C-alpha cells in the first residue's frame, strides 16, 4: 500500500506528517499525565484486550491512527470505488436490506408453509436449506439417506417437489436464495423450470444459488466431486446464467461456513475473497468477458459477536474486492467492482443454555451487519443452535430486523462509523492481514492447490483449537456457559417446541416412487445419456441438465451421472 500521504484538504504531505507526529506526542503525553494515574486507581480488568479474532486493541485511538489514510483512496463515497462505505449511494435511505430468513425442513409442503408464514410476517426475500441427501445429490430412498430425509432442510428429489416448494411464490418478484452447493446446477435448473411453469420468462427470474464449492473442501465437507471438475461446474452455471438468467446470481461466495468452522475474521476474509477470485479467474480463462460475470458474483459473510470487528471486516471486504477486480482482473464496469453481500448472524455464537440470551446476541450481530452495509440479512432464532427454529423464535428474529430498520435510526444514515479512529484502523488492519494471507495462497499456487495440500484446513483447525482453549481457560467469556451459568432446567419451554413430522420419510419416498412410475423412462434415459456426453465432451452441461430435470430425472440419477464422469472426492481430514 502507498505510504505517501495527502490530506483531504490538499495540504502537502509534510504538514500532515507533522500533524500525525504532534497527535502521537499528545497521546503519549496523555498516557503520562492522565492514563497512568487512572491505572493506579483502576488497573485494567484484563491483562490484555483483543478482538475476538485476536487483534490487539490499543488504549485509545486518535487521528494519528488514520494519518496514513487518503480519504479518496481509502474511505471515499458510497456507491463509488472502492465502495468502502457501501455499494449504493443511498444505502438504506433508498432501499432497506432484504430480510431473508432461511427456511427448510421436512417435505416441500412443510417448507412452502414456512415460506408463507415468513412472508406474511414481513420477510422480503426467501432462502432455502436442503436436507443432507439433497445436498449430497442422493435420492430420499438411498440407503445412506434413511435417517436424514427432511431433518436439517427440505427434501427435494424431482421437479415435482420443486413445484410444490415454490407453489404460490412468484419467482419473478420474490427472490429466493438456495443454500445448495454440489448439486446447485440441478436446483437451478429446477428453479428455472418452475418459474417457466409459472409463466415467468427466463430474463425475469430472480434468485441465488450458493454453489460455492471451494468452501466445502475447507469447511463444510458437502462436496461430491473433486475440486477441478467442481469449479468447472460453477463456471458452467455462471456462463449459463449470464446468457439465460441475467437476474439470477449463480454463485454466493461464502465466508459463513469458513467462520463457523473456526476461522478468524481475517481468515474468513482471505479465504472467501480468494475463492471468489478463483471463480472469476476461471470464468475469464474460459473466455468469458470479465465484465459479464462479476456483477453476478455475490457474497455471504458471517456476522460474529465482536461488534466493531465485524463492521470493519465487511467494509474491508468491499475495498479489497473492488481493488482486486479492477487491478488484478482488469474489470472496467463499476458493477464488477461492487461486492454485494448477504449476511447471517453467527450460529456458533449461540448457546443452548439460557436460550433467550441468544436474542440479544443476534440483535448485536444484526446491527453490526447493518452498520457494515449488508444487502440482505438472516437473523438466527434463539433456538437455532440445536433445532429447526420454532415459529415463535423465528418471528422474533424477523421482528429484530424490523425494529433495527424502523426504530433505531441505523437505516437512516449512510455508513455512520466512517471516520471512527477505531473502526477505520480495524478496517485497515483486517485488510492488511487478509491481503497477506491471500498473497501466501497465491504464492502456494492458488486456492485449489492450497486445498489439496491441506493448507487452508490447517489454518482453520488451528484457529478453532485456539478458540476452544481460550473458552475452556476462561479467557473468552461466554455468558451462561462459562460465566453466569445456571442450574440447567433441562427442557425448552413449550412454545419453542418444534419437530419434523416423523412420517416425512415415508411420504417423501412414496412421492418419489410415484414420480418414477409416472414419468417416461425413455425420456429420462435419453436426457441422462446426453448429459453424460456433454460432461465428457467438456460442453456446458446446463442445457442437458434442464432437459433431464423437465423429464423428471431425480437428483440422485443426475448426480450419479456426474459421479461416473468426474469421480467422487475423498478428503483427508487435517487436524
Amino acid at each position: 500500500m502507498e505510504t505517501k500521504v495527502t490530506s483531504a484538504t490538499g495540504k502537502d504531505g509534510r504538514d500532515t506528517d507533522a500533524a500525525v507526529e504532534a497527535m502521537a506526542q499528545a497521546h503519549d503525553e496523555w498516557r503520562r499525565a492522565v492514563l497512568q494515574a487512572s491505572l493506579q486507581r483502576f488497573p485494567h480488568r484484563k491483562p490484555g484486550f483483543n478482538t475476538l479474532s485476536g487483534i490487539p486493541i490499543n488504549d485509545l485511538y486518535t487521528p494519528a491512527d488514520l494519518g496514513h489514510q487518503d480519504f479518496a483512496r481509502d474511505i471515499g463515497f458510497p456507491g463509488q470505488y472502492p465502495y468502502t462505505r457501501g455499494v449504493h449511494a443511498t444505502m438504506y435511505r433508498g432501499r432497506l436490506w432484504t430480510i431473508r430468513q432461511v427456511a427448510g425442513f421436512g417435505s416441500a409442503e412443510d417448507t412452502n408453509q414456512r415460506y408463507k408464514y415468513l412472508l406474511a410476517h414481513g420477510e422480503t426475500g426467501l432462502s432455502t436449506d436442503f436436507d443432507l441427501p439433497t445436498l449430497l445429490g442422493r435420492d430420499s430412498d438411498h440407503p445412506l439417506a434413511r435417517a436424514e430425509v427432511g431433518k436439517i432442510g427440505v427434501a427435494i428429489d424431482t421437479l415435482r417437489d420443486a413445484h410444490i416448494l415454490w407453489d404460490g411464490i412468484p419467482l419473478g418478484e420474490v427472490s429466493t436464495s438456495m443454500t445448495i452447493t454440489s448439486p446447485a446446477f440441478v436446483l437451478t435448473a429446477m428453479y428455472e423450470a418452475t418459474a417457466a411453469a409459472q409463466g415467468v420468462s427466463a430474463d425475469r427470474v430472480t434468485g441465488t444459488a450458493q454453489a460455492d464449492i471451494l468452501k466445502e473442501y475447507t469447511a463444510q465437507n458437502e462436496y461430491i466431486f473433486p475440486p477441478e471438475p467442481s469449479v468447472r461446474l460453477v463456471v458452467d452455471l455462471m456462463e449459463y446464467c449470464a446468457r439465460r438468467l441475467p437476474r439470477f446470481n449463480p454463485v454466493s461466495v461464502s465466508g459463513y461456513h469458513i467462520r463457523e468452522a473456526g476461522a478468524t475474521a481475517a481468515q474468513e476474509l482471505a479465504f472467501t475473497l480468494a475463492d471468489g477470485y478463483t471463480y472469476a479467474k476461471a470464468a475469464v480463462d474460459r473466455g468469458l468477458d470479465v465484465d459479464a460475470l462479476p456483477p453476478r458474483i455475490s457474497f455471504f459473510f458471517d456476522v460474529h459477536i465482536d461488534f466493531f470487528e465485524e463492521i470493519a471486516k465487511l467494509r474491508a471486504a468491499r475495498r479489497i474486492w473492488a481493488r482486486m477486480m479492477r487491478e488484478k482482473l482488469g474489470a472496467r464496469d463499476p458493477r464488477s467492482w461492487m461486492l454485494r453481500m448477504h449476511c447471517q448472524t453467527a450460529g456458533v455464537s449461540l448457546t443452548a443454555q439460557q436460550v433467550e440470551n441468544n436474542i440479544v446476541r443476534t440483535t448485536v450481530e444484526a446491527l453490526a451487519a447493518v452498520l457494515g452495509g449488508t444487502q440482505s440479512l438472516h437473523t438466527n432464532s434463539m433456538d437455532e443452535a440445536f433445532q429447526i427454529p420454532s415459529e415463535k423464535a423465528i418471528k422474533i428474529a424477523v421482528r429484530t430486523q424490523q425494529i433495527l430498520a424502523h426504530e433505531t435510526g441505523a437505516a437512516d444514515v449512510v455508513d455512520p462509523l466512517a471516520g471512527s479512529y477505531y473502526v477505520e484502523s480495524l478496517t485497515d488492519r483486517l485488510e492488511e492481514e487478509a491481503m497477506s494471507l491471500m498473497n501466501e495462497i497465491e504464492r502456494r499456487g492458488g486456492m485449489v492447490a492450497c486445498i489439496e495440500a491441506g493448507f487452508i484446513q490447517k489454518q482453520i483447525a488451528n484457529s478453532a483449537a485456539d478458540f476452544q482453549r481460550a473458552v475452556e481457560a476462561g479467557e473468552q467469556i461466554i455468558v451462561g456457559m462459562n460465566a453466569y451459568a445456571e442450574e440447567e432446567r433441562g427442557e425448552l419451554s413449550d412454545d419453542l417446541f418444534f419437530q419434523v413430522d416423523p412420517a416425512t420419510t415415508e411420504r417423501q419416498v412414496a412421492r418419489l416412487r410415484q414420480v418414477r412410475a409416472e414419468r417416461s423412462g425413455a425420456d429420462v434415459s435419453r436426457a441422462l445419456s446426453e448429459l453424460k456426453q456433454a460432461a465428457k465432451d467438456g460442453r456446458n452441461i446446463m442445457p442437458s441438465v434442464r432437459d433431464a430435470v423437465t423429464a423428471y430425472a431425480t437428483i440422485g440419477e443426475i448426480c450419479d451421472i456426474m459421479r461416473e464422469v468426474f469421480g467422487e472426492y475423498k478428503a483427508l481430514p487435517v487436524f
Partner: protein
Amino acid sequence: MSDPIIRVVVAKPGMDGHDRGAKIIARAFRDAGMEVIYTGIFQTPEQIVSAVVQEDADVLGLSILSGAHVHYAQEISRLLREQGADDVLFVMGGTISKADRPRLNELGVAAVFGPGARTGDVVKFVRDWAAEHRAG
C-alpha cells in the same frame, strides 16, 4: 506399570460433514495421552462398529449434528451387541436435545455431551470410566 493407553474411535455417522467438533475432541483426546482412531465423516454404522472391533477400542465417540442421533444409537448398539463389542464405552456429542437423552441412555449411550460441553469434561469422564471398568 502405568495405566494402559486408552484407545478411542471417533466417528461421524451418516451424511453430515460438519467436523469441527469431532476434530476438536480428537485433538483433546490426543493431548490427554489417548490414541484416537479417527474414521472421519460419511461412515455407516457397519463401518464404525467394524473399526471398534478391529481396533479393540475402549471408547466409541460419535459426533452428530444432523438430528439423526436416535437412529444411529439404535443401529450401532445393535451391531455392537451382535459382534460382542458392547462393553465399549459409547458416548455421543453434538446437537442432541435434552428430551432425547433418556432414550439414548436406554439404547446404550453412556453419556451425551451437548453444545457447549467442555472437552475437559469429556476427557475426565472417559478417564474415570477407564479407571473403574477396564480389566487393568
